[in-house]
């Protein structure tokens, strides 16, 4: 159980981020919650690629005979980080736009579209 601490941490971080998205009414905090979940999922992938005692999968001047960690999750995480960055930038732009029109970032007041 304690061996899987990184995976447990992932679940904890997702829980924290999800709490912000579900119960915080400030739009900026919702965006922050999404960012936290995103980091947690990235951590999940990276943790899945770890091998005990492994080194980075780069052959340049690497010590001989060491086992290397799995390279795929690192590539996936790189992709996921850039995607997360892009979504965060766009979400924040929308918040700016909402603030211009509504004059507030309280999600309870931003409900012109309903029913």
């Amino acid at each position: 159980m304690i061996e899987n601490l990184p995976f447990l941490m992932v679940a904890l971080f997702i829980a924290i981020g999800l709490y912000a998205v579900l119960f915080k009414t400030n739009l900026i905090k919702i965006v922050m919650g999404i960012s936290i979940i995103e980091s947690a999922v990235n951590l999940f992938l990276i943790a899945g690629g770890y091998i005990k005692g492994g080194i980075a999968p780069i052959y340049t001047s690497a010590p001989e005979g060491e086992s290397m960690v799995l390279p795929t999750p690192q590539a996936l995480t790189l992709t996921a980080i850039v995607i997360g960055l892009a979504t965060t930038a766009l979400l924040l732009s929308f918040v700016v736009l909402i603030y211009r029109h509504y004059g507030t970032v309280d999600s309870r007041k931003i409900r012109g579209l309903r029913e």
Partner: protein
Amino acid sequence: MNLEGPMTKIVRVFSNAVFAFALIFGFYVVLHGHLTPGGGFQGGAIMASAVALLLIAYGADRIGKGLKKGTLSSMESLGLLGFILLAIAGIASAMNVVFGNFLLDNSLGIFSEVPPTGVNPGYLNTAGTLPWMSLFVGLEVLAGLSLIVFNMAGGLPKEVKSSRGGEVK
């Protein structure tokens, strides 16, 4: 923080000094992506942070005069076009496939050697299309991230007027 006007002289001098180093470091990271940790995205992000540093130090107006949004946008498209063309060019080569590494081991261009298998000190002139792709992606990320920061610093145009949202009637 006031993004419109320049910040104090201390900040400006310091960011001038750091700017060049950050750019060069970013370029180094891009160029050595196939040998050391790094690559197009990481290096591009470092270079873009250098641009963002200048933006904060001098304000959006002053930097905007030297570095036009249109130029950055063209740079971004150029990077992406280079990347996708390199990928598509694989069809025309002997590899006959999208994303084929056709520049490897063909004795024509630079970056064309194959390194010895296993641990080695690292040779820059290797890896075929990979460094080229790194360069193009670095260009795209540099321009793309700078554009995001520029747009956000510029703020919404005045034509977008505040309209109290409210009821759908």
